[in-house]
């Protein structure tokens, strides 16, 4: 059946199929909500200097300490009198950027290791997967803490530590998919046609894995944003930089006993919203590419 069609016809069909998958994602209600949330936060982050009413590092601070939300300070002020809304807007820049960078790095690393292990099998698979299992089974947070304690607090440390602890789950998923893909007839025919290993991996396996990698990468942003907040909360990030995590770090010591609930609620709600947005998109990507899930 497939052989009766010319390469250009096939190409057109594939691009059509890809376009319909993309529009399928854009038309799912979940993904729309997710994209909506992300667009709002992206605008706030990019336009921070214009959108934010104050600078989060203003000295002297614009308000009195622990001012509850009112018309001037929509989300109230912190212990120094800085505007919480401005901190949220500027903090989002750090939290979301770290989330995206970590998602990109860890998905890249996990994909590389997963494909190599799944494609070459035998010794390479054994070595890579034992390493993966080792990192996977170690409790993530203690591992992050000990790494961060040795590397010293900074945003670079947070990115590195989150990447090191989060690639194994991607590697596992990609490997198992690669294992089943490599037995398919079209991989055999490529090999018979004389394609090199690197060509099979980059031109045949990778495009077929793209949807599952994308779903994982998007989900990884959520993991990274939450993980970043946790590290900052313990004080292992750079506490002088305003992020949603460092806001909670300072709030933990000052907010509760001064009744400044707005200071605690705002960053947490933002973390949940952004995290949820990426989960919703990830779920709808998976639903589109894995029809079995649609009925369930």
């Amino acid at each position, binding site marked *: 059946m497939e052989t009766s069609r010319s390469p250009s016809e096939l190409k057109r069909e594939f691009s059509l199929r890809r376009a319909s998958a993309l529009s399928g994602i854009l038309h799912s209600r979940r993904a729309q909500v997710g994209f909506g949330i992300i667009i709002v936060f992206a605008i706030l982050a990019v336009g921070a200097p214009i959108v934010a009413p104050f600078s989060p590092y203003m000295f002297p601070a614009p308000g009195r300490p622990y001012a509850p939300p009112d018309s001037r300070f929509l989300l109230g002020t912190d212990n120094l009198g800085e505007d919480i809304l401005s901190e949220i807007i500027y903090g989002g820049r750090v939290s979301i950027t770290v989330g995206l960078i970590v998602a990109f790095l860890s998905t890249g690393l996990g994909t590389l290791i997963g494909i190599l292990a799944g494609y070459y099998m035998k010794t390479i698979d054994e070595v890579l997967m034992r390493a993966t299992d080792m990192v996977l*089974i170690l409790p993530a947070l203690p591992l992050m803490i000990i790494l961060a304690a040795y590397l010293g607090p900074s945003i670079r440390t947070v990115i590195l530590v989150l990447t090191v602890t989060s690639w194994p789950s991607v590697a596992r998923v990609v490997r198992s998919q690669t294992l089943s893909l490599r037995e398919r007839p079209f991989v055999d025919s490529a090999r018979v046609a004389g394609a090199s290993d690197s060509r099979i991996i980059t031109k045949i396996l990778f495009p077929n894995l793209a949807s599952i990698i994308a779903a994982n990468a998007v989900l990884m942003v959520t993991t990274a944003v939450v993980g970043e907040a946790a590290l900052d909360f313990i004080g292992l990030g750079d506490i002088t930089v305003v992020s949603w995590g460092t806001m909670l770090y300072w709030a933990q010591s000052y907010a509760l006993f001064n009744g400044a609930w707005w200071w605690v609620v705002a960053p947490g709600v933002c973390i949940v919203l952004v995290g949820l947005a990426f989960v919703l998109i990830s779920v709808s990507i998976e639903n589109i590419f894995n029809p079995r899930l649609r009925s369930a």
Partner: protein
Amino acid sequence: MPGNAIYYFANPRIIATPGALAALMRRFGLDKSVWVQFQLYWVNLFSWPPNFGVSYLYYPASVFSVIMQYLPWTLFLVGVSTVLTAIVGILVGVLTGSRPGSKLDTASVSISMILWTMPFFWLGIILLWVFAISLQWFPVSGATSAGITANSPLEIHDAGDLLWHAFLPMTTLVAAAYAGYSLIMRNTMVNELSQDYILLARAKGLRENAVLFGHAARNAMLPMITLIGLNLGYVVSGALLVEIVFSYPGVGLLTYRAVLAHDYPLLQGLFFIISLAVIIANYLADITYAFLDPRIKY
């Protein structure tokens, strides 16, 4: 490691004379080469009790003895909350998985998703603020009331006091870890209910509850054993943060203090013991699985 580790011991104690610093270097073995230190580490690890060195923060107590003081409280928190989470998650999973697509199912899946994204520690802070600080129903910190001292939860006779203190931290852990259990149980239930033996059970005229709990749920529960093992690392991580929020005297609070004090020997020992505990638990889960499911052979 930034700076010389010994300064983190010496500075808070205002020790500055070169002779004293040199003596400290010798005391902690830091004057030896890295290679010799590494060899010593392995030798000490396999002695009994395992020697992780001396804590900077709790000097002169050994790292191992300090950890053993805090570990039972974390085991108590993690153990009880894991059992509770599994029970609640399985029940909700059975209920929602038997009616996929219903309002109850949609609501439950949405709640699970929100809980899954919610940072453990933030949920803890909110609960602390609402129930401990504002309403004052529960204590703000600690594992026991003032005056009650115990080395582990088992030594406490006043169970009410113990549970009163553990209530909020445990609720946080259960709420945050619940999502994984309920979602996976739901999906395996949906899967099992489409199998032929369920059709047979219904054809035999069994009551719906017998079909759900006696047939489907029993088979759907098998993957939960593995999940408990896999989830444990996650719950332990969560427990660390929750202990910090509630000042609960477990290894999480200890880790936090060790980080603040740059107590490197204590951090190393903590990481080793926590990882060992999680690995052993995973191993036990694997063995249990093979025991329950005769198709699995190792």
